[in-house]
């Protein structure tokens, strides 16, 4: 896993998507974490009160970055691990979006299963950046997902991203998200209890070892999956 500046991670994703769309690469994968920040989809930046919310979050020690994928506001920080998978998808399958989410979440759900943790896909009321392809454990959000699709010759270049909670978000994080929405004038309330981190799902004496095995397994799968294939 790589520790990156958030801006560098977002730049890496944009560059790899351009490589794939331009035919210079077939797939790419990165497991990463970054400093504390908020990340909003670019569409949120066109909200009339975004600048005010942006400034206040920045003053409170939560710099705001914009991302290319869809969804809503999310926190980032050392307690969150991200998986970025980028690949080509054929046109005309009529299930591209759903298949891409399954491809992204499959290594994460397998790693959870290896740790004895049962998971499924689903929305969670009160979770940040809620969506049907969250990975949930015991009805709480463990990972959020998003995508970006770019047409290329006869195919689509797909950027997928999952953010996994290693620790359950603390009250400061949740308050920051809710403050941002309040400053934007958006009526949305996030609840800490809608989320669960890996460290709250494993035995106290197993936390470090489980986390290490979990991330190694995802990294192995992602590396294998994105490596060039011999035909």
């Amino acid at each position, binding site marked *: 896993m790589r520790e990156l500046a958030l801006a560098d991670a977002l730049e890496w994703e944009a560059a790899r998507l351009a490589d794939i769309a331009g035919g210079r690469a077939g797939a790419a994968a990165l497991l990463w974490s970054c400093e504390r920040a908020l990340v909003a*989809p*670019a*569409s949120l930046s*066109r909200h009339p009160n975004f600048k005010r919310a942006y400034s206040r979050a920045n003053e409170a020690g939560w710099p705001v970055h914009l991302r*290319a*994928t*869809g*969804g*809503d506001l999310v926190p980032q920080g050392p307690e969150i691990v991200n998986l970025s998978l980028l690949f080509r998808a054929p*046109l*005309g*399958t*009529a*299930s*591209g*979006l*759903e298949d*891409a*989410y399954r491809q992204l979440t499959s290594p994460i759900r397998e790693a959870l299963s290896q740790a004895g943790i049962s998971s499924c896909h689903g929305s969670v009321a009160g979770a940040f*950046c809620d*969506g*049907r*392809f969250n990975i949930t454990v015991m009805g709480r959000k463990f990972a959020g*997902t*998003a*995508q*970006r*699709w*770019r*047409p290329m010759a006869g195919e*689509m270049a797909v950027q997928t991203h999952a953010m996994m909670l290693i620790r359950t978000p603390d009250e400061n994080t949740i308050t920051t998200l809710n403050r941002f929405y309040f400053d934007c004038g958006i009526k949305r309330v996030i609840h800490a209890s809608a989320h669960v981190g890996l460290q709250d799902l494993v035995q106290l004496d197993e936390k470090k070892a489980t986390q290490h095995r979990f991330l190694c397994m995802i990294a192995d799968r992602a590396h294998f999956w994105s490596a060039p294939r011999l035909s």
Partner: protein
Amino acid sequence: MVTDVKVPRDLWQDDGMEAVITNWLASDGSNVRKGALIAEIMVEKSQFEVTAPADGVLTITKQDNDIVRKGDVIGTIA
């Protein structure tokens, strides 16, 4: 000749699922080139880039934040 700018039909399964136009990157009445990125739509937290299907002058028929479905015409190029 008029070419429709459509929401793709083959990107997701559910025919009833709604998407939203999150951004027009080309303005109404502007000249666009085939293949240029002109709009973005979002569905299921997925952002889709919409490219111009032809060269010509763009007429926007669905605005930012409008709800659209698979196959909907969101603009034309003439």
